[in-house]
């Protein structure tokens, strides 16, 4: 892949993007949270998005699950340890087009300074010119990680042995990017 072809930069529009995650609570339900502060940059070729490079950074202190006590617990060393590890980051190594809309995104995810390769499913929603003349593209990004792989180790169990908080975490991102002029 020739990086020199990736001349087009796209910047995230945070007002129309979300970085969410969900876990199973006590086996029976899904609890959802999100990160309010994040940045994402994409470099693509002039023609299309295949072989693009994507980088995003998330401010872990911006975590929001709607309950301050829970957010504080998540920031503690039981989970993210934000005293020491303030950023979650992702750097792509490849974005492969599977068909008109679907892509496979492979890259390295770093949480608590632990870096591991992950695969994410990406769907292109389309490209459009907005009422202000900017070109925008929309993507959904989905994947699952095991938080134990990144040392988010807290693991209380209920009577029957199920986890209070599941080890698997679903990544749910919908992003809108604006083409840099």
């Amino acid at each position, binding site marked *: 892949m020739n990086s020199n072809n990736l001349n087009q930069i796209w910047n995230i529009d945070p007002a129309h993007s*979300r970085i969410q995650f969900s876990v199973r609570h*006590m086996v029976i*339900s*899904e609890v*959802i949270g999100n990160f309010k502060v994040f940045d994402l940059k994409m470099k693509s070729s002039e023609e299309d998005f295949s072989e693009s490079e994507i980088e995003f950074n998330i401010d872990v202190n911006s975590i929001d699950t709607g309950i301050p006590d829970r957010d504080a617990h998540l920031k503690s060393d039981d989970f993210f340890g934000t005293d020491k590890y303030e950023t979650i980051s992702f750097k792509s190594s490849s974005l492969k087009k599977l068909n008109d809309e679907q892509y496979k995104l492979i890259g390295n995810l770093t949480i608590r300074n632990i870096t591991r390769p992950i695969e994410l499913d990406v769907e292109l929603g389309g490209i459009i010119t907005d*009422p202000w003349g900017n070109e925008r593209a*929309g993507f*959904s990004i989905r994947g699952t990680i095991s938080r134990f792989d990144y040392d988010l180790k807290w693991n209380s169990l209920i009577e029957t042995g199920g986890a209070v908080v599941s080890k698997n975490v679903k990544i749910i991102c919908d992003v*809108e990017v604006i083409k840099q002029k």
Partner: protein
Amino acid sequence: MKNIIFALIILVTSSLFAQNTSWTIDNAHSKVEFSVTHLVISEVTGNFKKFDGTITSNGNDFTKGNIEFSIDVNSINTENEQRDNHLKSDDFFNAAKFPKITFKGTSLYKVNGNKYKLKGNFTMRDVTKPIVLDVVYGGTVKDPWGNERVGFKIMGKVNRFDYGLKWNNLVEAGGAVVGKEVTMNCNIELIKKK
């Protein structure tokens, strides 16, 4: 003989008590979310932070109970104050005049496995229409404090134009800035009242 009669009385009494079991929503482990298409190309999601419900069942059988939800429109949150204020205006919800979104269930029936259909009347602004929601039953557990908990996922779609949420700017190519179809996605955890 006395023991048998005693046992029968207990059995009959406990089955009577099993009817109309009440449940409260654990807001800390529940979320009422919605999403719409933005500029045709992406999905924008928001939620309502304040909601409540009266849910009853016959023991753990929710198909023989009652489900009613109420959502506080002023608690809408799309992580953007300007947008939230626009949504509360008459262009969309008119939260000042119509502060609640409500759902009154009329029937819940099993489709297969853990999938159900929930029928009821859905009210936004001053319009009430029948809708059918998809429900997935997540299971029942006893939590570390001895409470019985049940989890559900409730999903559905509505056309906001049907309810008077009429704002509809278009882009040059004709597509809507904000889609008319709204997808609702709720994760609800209930605690059995003792």
